């Protein structure tokens, strides 16, 4: 059974839903018309600045294409599940699963994470939980010892010195006996009742990794976590879903993803020894692992049916550090993926992968032009630019609302857009300047 409860809107009456959809469509038409009008004002400048006009039309198309991509997600996913039946006609696919949880100084949350793993709706004899204590200096080891008492099958590997997340993961992967490895962050867990959905796609032999839908558990804490909650939802249910429509998810998120062990094991040492500009890479391990899966010719999917919770940074400083780390990971792995992706999937490479890189790199310059150069030197206010960003945010939000009417932090999409517009897009450059700093640096 597919548990779609958060996406279904069953608690609203049918007329309420019809009215709601009507409002969405109506607003959508207005927003799209506004986008067209806005583009028209730039097309107006075509003869003065043709590159800018082509750029803005292409960027808007690209941004909207993510929403359209996401619209195909369900269709694509169901098709894949249907195809799966030819490999597993009786629905008896039930592989052994190993959870691998690297942790360091997680005495508060590790217990709950382990508990949730064992609660998974799955035959106990087919589950295995491996925790790598990567040189914790707090009471983590103590907590693990107690957990071991409760769950005999728990495998604990205690390291006295910190070796890093990658090493911990690699060790866990090697220890794992299951056919499928579920990699969890120490502060994340998968909702036990949705666990099967994470394993289900592996019945299809061409699926190499599956990414669960993650939401921050501490979403309601403050505006920052609310905004991240909106961002998580958007980046999973829209951006990853759009990638998943083509069965090419580029990042099976580190907090809650599953891998087929026999694919991962052979490349584990190469992955472990990965270097960038001569130094070991300490971030983007999840991206990197997913890329390996893709490189080896397998497909990766995102499933909205398996749901995970994680903890997101509650303070700005942590949040920025995390963003910097993610940008670095994105950058290094984009270089890695660009070496093979155009051969493996030219369509995706040229409609999504390379355009994304281009847009991400150009956006900060455009934002700089709109907010600093134009107002100061040309006396052109940045209203049009802001309106463009805002309208795209509206269209994304409308789709967001369409997918989940219940998700209540949707207004924060605009907060995210605003912050992204004036600040976050520039973080990429900070990340690139400090790319030789390989410290982990969040917790």
């Amino acid at each position, binding site marked *: 059974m597919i548990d779609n409860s958060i996406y279904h809107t069953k608690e609203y009456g049918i007329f309420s839903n019809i009215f709601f959809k009507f409002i969405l469509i109506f607003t959508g038409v207005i927003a799209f018309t506004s986008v*067209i009008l806005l583009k028209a004002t730039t*097309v107006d400048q075509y003869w003065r600045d043709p590159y800018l006009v082509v750029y803005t039309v292409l960027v808007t*198309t690209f941004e909207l294409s993510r929403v*359209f991509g996401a619209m195909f997600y369900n269709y694509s996913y169901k098709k894949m599940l249907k195809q799966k039946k030819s490999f597993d006609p009786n629905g008896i696919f039930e592989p052994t699963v190993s959870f691998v949880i690297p942790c360091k100084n997680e005495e508060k949350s590790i217990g709950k994470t382990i508990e949730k793993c064992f609660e998974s709706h799955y035959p106990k004899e087919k589950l295995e939980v491996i925790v790598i204590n990567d040189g914790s200096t707090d009471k983590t080891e103590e907590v693990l010892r107690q957990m071991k008492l409760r769950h005999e099958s728990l495998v604990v590997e205690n390291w006295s010195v910190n070796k890093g997340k990658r090493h911990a993961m690699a060790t866990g992967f090697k220890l794992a006996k299951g056919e499928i490895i579920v990699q969890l962050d120490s502060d994340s867990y998968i909702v036990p009742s949705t666990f099967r959905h994470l394993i289900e796609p592996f019945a299809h032999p061409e699926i190499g990794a599956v990414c669960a839908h993650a939401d921050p558990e501490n979403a309601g804490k403050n505006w920052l976590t609310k905004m991240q909650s909106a961002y998580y939802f958007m980046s999973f249910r829209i951006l990853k879903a759009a990638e998943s429509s083509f069965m090419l998810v580029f990042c099976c998120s580190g907090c809650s993803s599953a891998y087929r062990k026999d694919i991962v094991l052979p490349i584990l040492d190469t992955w472990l020894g990965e270097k960038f500009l001569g130094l070991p890479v300490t971030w983007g391990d999840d991206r990197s692992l997913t890329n390996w899966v893709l490189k080896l*010719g397998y497909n990766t999917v995102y499933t909205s049916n398996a749901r995970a919770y994680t903890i997101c940074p509650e303070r700005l400083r942590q949040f920025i550090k995390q963003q910097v780390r993610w940008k670095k990971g994105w950058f290094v792995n984009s270089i890695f993926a660009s070496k093979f992706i155009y051969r493996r999937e030219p369509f995706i490479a040229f409609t999504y992968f390379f355009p994304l890189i281009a847009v991400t790199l150009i956006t900060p310059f455009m934002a700089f032009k709109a907010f600093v150069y134009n107002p100061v030197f040309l006396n052109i206010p940045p209203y049009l630019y802001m309106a463009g960003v805002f309208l795209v945010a509206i269209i994304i939000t409308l789709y967001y609302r369409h997918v989940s009417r219940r998700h209540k932090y949707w207004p924060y999409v605009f907060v995210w857009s605003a912050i992204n517009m004036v600040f976050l897009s520039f973080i990429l450059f900070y990340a690139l300047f400090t790319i030789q700093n390989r410290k982990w640096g969040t917790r």
Partner: protein
Amino acid sequence: MNKRKHLKRHLMLIKFNFSFTVFVVFIIMSYAGYVINSSSVFAKNNIISSIRYLNYKSISAQAKVNQAQVKNEASTSIPVLVYHGFASKSKPESEYSIDLKKFEDQMISLKKSGYRTVTLEDLKRFNNENASLPEKSFLLTFDDGRQDMYYNADPLLRALNYNAVIFDITEKNDAGSNYYLSKDELKRMTKSKRWDVEAHAYKGHGDIEIDANGKKGHFFSNKQWLKDQNRAETTDEYTARIKDELTHVKNDLESTLNTPVTTFAYPYGDYGQESLNFPEAKQLLPNIVKEYFPLSFYQYASGAFSYNYAGERNALIKRIIVDSKWSGENLLSELAKGHSKQIPYSSNTFDQSQGWVSSWGNLNFDNRIMKIESGKDSAGSSVFLDGSKSWKNYSFSSTVNWEKGSDLSVLSNYLDDNNYLSFNLTQSSVRLVLKNMGEQKILKEIKRELDVPKDNLSLGIRSIDGKTSLFIGDKLVLEYENSEYKDLYGGVGFKIWDKQINNASMQIKSIKIVKDSDQNVVVVDPTKIKSLPYKINSFNQDLGWTKTWGTLRYNQEAMILESTGDGTGASSYLQGSENWQEYSYQTKLDWSKGSNVILMARYLDEKNYVSFNISDQYLRIEQRVDDQTEILKEIKNELNMPKYGLDVKIDVVGNKIVCYFQNSPIFDFIGINSKFNKGAIGFKIWDQAPANAKIIINEVLVDPL
């Protein structure tokens, strides 16, 4: 092993659907952008224009034409207005960019006061064939073909049902320009029938190098400096260059619009008069232009009549540059100055608004007296009356003070500074001078030492069917007749001159122009202007009481007004009280005979006045407008009417009139016609039977209010 063979087909379908969707969105976005910026109905500018039009439509529906201000007469002259474009945030208000709000005010004011636009065809016929145009016609033109001009002006003109001409610079009609109109837009303008697209320039709307030092001058009026040959172009080369330019602009427009283009506006209004290195351009250039464009336009420079007159067959049409600072009110009064004036025309007070135009020297108005004087660099000064150009066969008399200068001239049949007839007065001679195409010709001269007063000098010139008479005071001093000059026409003016620089000045105190050749030239004597309060109880013929009907005589210090002979009534007014405005007019009189005694106030002439009409049966407040009497208020006369010692009074304040009898108010009325804002006092009597009306006036007392 191809590991992806199962998902591959499935993904193909998704990729196809996805690509199709995104492609459609991309096309919609690009195409919609293109459509919105193109010149179709859905174009942004057009949508905005339509909204503005609806808005203006509702405004102009309220702003009804004030019918009272429209006379259904034919117009003998027409003003042509020129604008360029509109101010916006990026274009500050300037000579060439008017604020839209101002323009709205100007156009709506024109509409309200009954002005209507004519088409270029109308103007051509008016100019060539003396075809008549309705009163208050004007032609609206816009130079340069700017987008802001079209999109701002069009909705308003459409709402007001006005049309206009644009003079376009064809070099600029690129689709990509967002300053100048494109060919598509020009086509749409022509199609709307509201706009007539005509020629301004191809690339000639600018400067060229005119000498070796790189000095710049207008393209059309100067010889170009040929750098490579180190010489200025020859006249032939100049002609060829101009012809090439004119051919280009004509062909451009005709091929774009598919309609003949026959008029042209000189860039900067320079038809050669501003040439820096080729003075002959002034004659040559208009002749070249005429080959391509029979009618051309330039900007009106001061010192000439501002309107264009019917049947003049001018190749050059004058245009009034509308000042960006003018309000609608300002524009109306500017147009009023140049508006054709009607004979009879008289004035004993002078001010800016009447349309006196200085063509030389200085002109100023002081205490309602007009004064012209030579300036620091001029030997003389001259002035003419705008709007008088079409006058023909009239008597022109004036009272002037000859202050300084050897030659004083009264001008009639004035067309411009090179064409007029002049009554020229010096200490030793009286001359009748004709200036024709700049050539001065003395038609007749009488040499004699003149013994005339320098102050309040009364001069008259009458020129009717080639017969010209000159008067000093009432005395005919010179007569000349030549049928060659019987077609002369033109306005009036004055000129003062001395051979010494800055030593000429004269004052003009009153003028009167009348049509009737037989009527005596009567000039309002400024010395007779009365001031308030005015009190008289001892009457004689020198006081300025003037009879207009019946008989006025004096007996034992009383004034007697009576009908005589076949006349059924009599009337008289007080000369010199014409400019009284708000006053209380009281009189004591004996009513000897007649059915009606009428006290007139704000008397303009026999056909226009306000009155208190007393008869045995009724009492009335009346106004007489253009010979039509209108009863404003009437009550039955229940008063005890003494025949002797009647004391009657009228107060006129603003548009209110109050009537008193024996010092008690009888009735009043508010809302007398606005034309009665000033006027003289007078009496009128009437009876059915001839020679049966008579009153004896013992006292008149007028106090200011």
